[in-house]
């Protein structure tokens, strides 16, 4: 990990296209301004962790779990198609 010290208002440039600026500093919070091309996804870590964990719990090993779920969906009419 590269650790840099920046003062208020100072920038970091990544790969020519991404820049991060320190917008404000509070006692335990830093506000960062990030500029990047629109195809670069920028997420808070905890959000990525949440999706990661959800993806992991979605891996299905037994097909029949899904069959009964599919049947239930059709019976309950929860899915309109």
């Amino acid at each position: 990990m590269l650790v840099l010290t920046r003062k208020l208002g100072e920038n970091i440039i990544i790969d020519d296209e991404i820049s991060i600026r320190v917008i404000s500093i509070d006692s335990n919070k830093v506000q960062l301004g990030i500029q990047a091309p629109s195809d670069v996804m920028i997420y808070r870590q905890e959000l990525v962790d949440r999706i990661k964990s959800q993806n992991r719990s979605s891996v299905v090993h037994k097909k029949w779990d899904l069959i009964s779920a599919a049947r239930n969906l059709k019976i309950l009419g929860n899915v309109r198609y």
Partner: protein
Amino acid sequence: MKVVTLQFGELEVMEEQIIRFPKGIIGFEDCHEFVIIDDEEYEPFRWLISLDKEEFGFPILDPFLVVPDYLKEFPASIARELEADDTVMDVFCVVTLKGEGGKVTLNLKGPIIIDYLKGEGRQIILPSEDLSVSYPIS
């Protein structure tokens, strides 16, 4: 090419069926090739099966079947592409099964977008805090 999967055993997969995920799926960044498998037994669910990891596959669902106005959650540029008449893009959400014959939930927060023309897919995270990773659909 022949592929061995946990869910379907050995499958014959055509080159043009393979969807490349340059950045993998969140949490599985080393899975770069997937195929979508349909089996009418599971309709309307479909399967996104990894060609890189034999045991990795998960059920997916067209989210518009349960959330008709889902498109409004997408950034304008992506929504525009999805809405176009001649669109080559599709959205799927990952399905999670909880317990035996129990609850089924949909991850509306992290949809998967497929571009069939490029043969590429990626998972994105939508900004709205109202979207759930486990939206109940049963």
